[in-house]
């Protein structure tokens, strides 16, 4: 029953979408002065229908209705209720339905929130957004319908991938999607603003809120994914430069650049082209990410669907939107470039422009690293794999000037500043930072590319932002984010350089010496749980300061049969002790990996600080 309701509501939403495209283009042509009430009602109907459809899928998951193919493929009666619900968007079909839900709801909110603006602009945004919505509706209905019936009805489902049974991962996709889909509104509205010739201060003020909110969700979404990878995958790191991770990072670079550019547009009425191009690029990268992940063109742990027709659909749809955007950009660009005000070298806007170029550089590195293997394979059939060293070596040196501009830039004035007044205070902090990092590197014998300037500028940004935090100013949100970023850079530097790892094959009772620590494999228990069997090991790690017990697990799930390693992590504010073990063969030996990772908690905390700055910026009263 829920199946039929879900399916038919999607068709009604499709009809509403066709009607909206027709009606909004009609209203634009007739230059109507008021918003047609039909448009508002059609949009309400559409949002409601998608909402109903999404909830009927969740309902089917809760009652384990295996006549629904999606439920059959991804659920099981013994799953805890929480994971039954999260299972509804943990799969390809359900996640697209969630995309669609957020798309329609965001458009609805946009329409309510933009009452003060030009009617033509609002109608055009509705038109562009509906073009995206109709694409998704067709995609869902014809290539990935979540409401397909199964007959005869199976008695039991195929289960949800146990790796995905994790609270961080259950909420990671929806949060990330809010970020991705938020960029669709930015895309539609920037095209609309371009057509209306209103890429200006007023528009910037209005769209800034959407940019900030998408940026917050994207940041937190990436953070949650990273936390999940650290705790669940048991690889002992927080970022692996896996193609699917990169795909979420690319729109983040773009959106971060956009966030800074829109402030310049709001304050100074310049950088119109930057704003529009970044808006288009951010959304294209979000959609492109969906394409790369969902088409199975990448090989990665996240790859679910391997249906080429889906890939072709998203690809054509994406490029249709991109081409549309390019055409609109070239036709209407002139209209928006009336007032070109002069900008000076030493000014805040120049610092932001430099920041943008750096962001574009980081973006290109990640983009090339992710996409180049695909290109190469198509062009001459050779397979290459690009690993973390590529990204680290290319990004690390460029972080040095980036950090410098980030530290100095916010202290410059708008329009024109005097370079000669670079104060004594800053210079002292700079020298101090370099000395500290030099001593640090010498003392610990760090052997890493550009270690001294990297640490030095990390500290410099840290000191400057700490100093500025105390000074009273209206840009508290910016300061918190930048402070968070300096903390982030320092924590990953410490973490990456001072991490220690130890691997060995051990059996129960074995003891190993590592650095000045003793690792003892004390015992091993087997515990039967509701939907899995668990091997729980007990290790003792001791040194002259004290000892800690760590109990990593290996879980054997029955539906489907999968082994997962659950690392045990002892976190303190100074460092993490990470221990994970794996079954080798039946001879009593286990592969044990112990890692000591300094400042791990600070990485998460600093990203939370960065987003907190964004949240503060969102609620800040406009001056």
């Amino acid at each position, binding site marked *: 029953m829920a199946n039929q309701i879900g399916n038919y509501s999607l068709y009604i939403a499709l009809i509403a979408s066709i009607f909206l495209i027709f009606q909004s283009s009609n209203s634009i042509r007739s230059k109507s002065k008021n918003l047609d009430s039909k448009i508002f009602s059609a949009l309400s109907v559409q949002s409601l229908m998608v909402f109903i459809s999404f909830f009927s899928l969740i309902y089917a998951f809760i009652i384990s209705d295996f006549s629904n193919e999606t439920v059959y493929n991804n659920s099981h009666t013994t799953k805890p209720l929480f994971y039954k619900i999260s299972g509804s968007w943990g799969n390809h079909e359900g996640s697209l339905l969630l995309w669609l839900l957020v798309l329609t709801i965001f458009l609805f909110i946009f329409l309510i929130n933009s009452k003060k603006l030009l009617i033509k602009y609002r109608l055009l945004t509705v038109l562009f957004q509906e073009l995206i919505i109709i694409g998704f509706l067709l995609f869902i209905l014809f290539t990935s319908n979540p409401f397909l019936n199964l007959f005869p009805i199976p008695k039991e489902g195929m289960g949800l991938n146990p790796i995905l049974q994790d609270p961080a991962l259950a909420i990671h996709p929806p949060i990330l999607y809010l970020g991705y889909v938020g960029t669709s509104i930015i895309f539609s509205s920037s095209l609309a603003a371009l057509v209306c010739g209103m890429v200006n201060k007023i528009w910037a003020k209005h769209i800034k809120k959407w940019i900030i909110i998408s940026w917050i969700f994207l940041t937190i979404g990436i953070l949650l994914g990273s936390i999940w990878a650290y705790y669940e995958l048991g690889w002992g790191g927080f970022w692996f430069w896996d193609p699917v991770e990169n795909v979420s990072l690319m729109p983040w670079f773009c959106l971060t650049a956009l966030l800074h550019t829109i402030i310049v547009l709001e304050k100074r009425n310049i950088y119109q082209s930057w704003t529009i191009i970044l808006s288009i690029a951010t959304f294209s990268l979000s959609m492109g990410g969906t394409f790369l992940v969902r088409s199975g063109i990448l090989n990665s742990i996240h790859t679910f669907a391997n249906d080429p027709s889906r890939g072709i659909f998203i690809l054509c749809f994406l*490029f249709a939107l991109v081409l549309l955007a390019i055409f609109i950009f070239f036709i209407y660009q002139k209209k928006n470039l009336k007032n070109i005000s002069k900008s000076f070298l030493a000014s805040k806007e120049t610092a932001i422009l430099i920041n943008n170029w750096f962001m574009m550089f980081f973006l290109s590195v990640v983009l090339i690293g992710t996409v180049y293997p695909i290109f190469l394979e198509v062009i001459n059939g050779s397979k290459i794999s690009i690993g973390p060293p590529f990204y680290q070596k290319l990004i690390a040196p460029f972080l040095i000037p980036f950090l410098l501009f980030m530290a100095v830039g916010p202290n410059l004035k708008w329009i024109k500043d005097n370079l000669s007044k670079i104060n004594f205070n800053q210079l002292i902090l700079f020298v101090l930072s370099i000395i500290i990092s030099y001593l640090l590197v010498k003392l610990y014998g760090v052997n890493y590319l550009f270690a001294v300037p990297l640490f030095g500028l990390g500290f410099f940004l840290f000191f400057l932002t700490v100093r500025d935090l105390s000074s009273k100013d209206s840009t508290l949100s910016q300061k918190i984010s930048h402070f968070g970023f300096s903390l982030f850079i320092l924590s990953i530097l410490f973490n990456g350089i001072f991490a220690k790892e130890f691997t060995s094959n051990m059996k129960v009772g074995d003891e190993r010496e590592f650095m000045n620590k003793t690792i003892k494999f004390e015992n091993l228990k087997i515990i039967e749980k509701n939907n899995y069997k668990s091997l729980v090991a007990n290790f003792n790690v001791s040194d002259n300061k004290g000892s800690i017990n760590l109990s990593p697990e290996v879980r054997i799930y029955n539906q489907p049969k999968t082994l997962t390693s659950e690392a045990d992590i002892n976190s303190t504010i100074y460092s993490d002790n990470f221990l994970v073990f794996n079954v080798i063969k039946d001879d009593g030996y286990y592969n044990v990996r112990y890692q000591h990772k300094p400042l791990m908690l600070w990485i998460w905390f600093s990203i939370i600080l960065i987003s907190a700055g964004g949240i503060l910026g969102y609620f800040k009263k406009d001056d």
Partner: protein
Amino acid sequence: MIKNIKFIIIILFSLFIFFIFLKGLEKPNNYLPEKTSSKIETNLSAKKLYDQKEVLLGELINNNNFSIINIWASWCLPCRDEHVYLLNLKKTNSINVIGINYKDKKSNAVEFLKDFGNPYSEVLTDPDGTKSIELGAFGIPETYLVNNKNKEIIKKYIGPLNDVKFKEILKIIKNEKN
């Protein structure tokens, strides 16, 4: 004029990327796990489906030049899709098709073979799924192409067989024979 050139370059560049991606979609993108061992586990012993007699897998891999080992179950939907390919492989007469019935009820399995046809020269049962794990299976359906002479796995196919994989099997057999 300069603007037009810019425009054309951007359009051409987007189209270029589009076609690369389109080509990229055509490549087989099923993830193949690293071969842990290229030899098939000949010492694996299991009960036969019909007479419940214990038999070694190695004994079954001998009549022909090649064997197909196919892991399936009556409750598995993709197995139904690939069944016709197995029947066709049987018809070539140069391949021994051996089935491993994964976590299934005997009655359901027998009925499945009665309804859809039986491509297997022999079916072994794997009621608790452990035999398949010993073979290195990742999920069902899964199919191995084995060279009977040296008992080596030539290729693993994860997921249901389809036209492309079917043709590839025939091609491999033809090439190896020569």
